[in-house]
């Protein structure tokens, strides 16, 4: 039996929560994904989007600013 890679498990959970529109849970999973890929600006941006949809604007800003910084550098 093949074991699914941890990063894929996180990605799958994100997709599941997004489909269910459970944005707060999706946002938390994005944090886990960032643990695997800390310097990917796209993921930072998507985390920002999830937090924004979860009505957590200030946290969204934090991730958006991380993303902008990474795009710039």
């Amino acid at each position, binding site marked *: 039996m093949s074991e699914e890679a941890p990063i894929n498990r996180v990605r799958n959970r994100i997709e599941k929560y997004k489909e269910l529109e459970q944005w707060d849970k999706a946002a938390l999973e994005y944090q886990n994904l960032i643990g695997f890929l800390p310097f990917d600006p796209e993921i930072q*941006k998507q985390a920002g989007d999830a937090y924004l949809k979860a009505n957590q604007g200030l946290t*969204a*800003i934090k991730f*958006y*600013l991380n993303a*902008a910084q990474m*795009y*710039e550098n």
Partner: protein
Amino acid sequence: MRPRCTKTDKEIDKAIAVLKKVLKIKPSLIELKVRLGDLYLKQDKVSLSQELYEECLKTFQEMGVKQDALSVFKKIVELQPRNLILHRKLADMYEKENMPVQAATEFKSLLKKAKEIGLNTEILILLQKIVTLDPKSYEEALELVQIYYKTEQFDQACSGSGN
């Protein structure tokens, strides 16, 4: 001098899009508008950049955040290096904010232009300003003394800067 763009336009576009999102959530983050202006400048979108800088300058001035206003105004001046009125305004702002070295630097740049154009009265005033603001401006001090001698203002020549 404009910063040389080291990132692709696409990445800068993405950074711009993200910053715009942030500003939509929190428009009061004026420093982000300055950053946005910097990014437009990297893409050579000078008018967009200037528009943002001017908006930020106005807000900083209204808020009374003088150092930030100065820093943005400097960016505006850098966009129009030949605009002597703006250079003069920046120099006056530095002087008013008790930043003599920066003020002297701006006045020196104005002096250079005044010499190119041959504005003799202005040259004298600028030299006086520079020597007063930065007493270590020996070259300008010497030039000033020479002008005083030429114009037979011996008392002022003896006192150095004339102040």
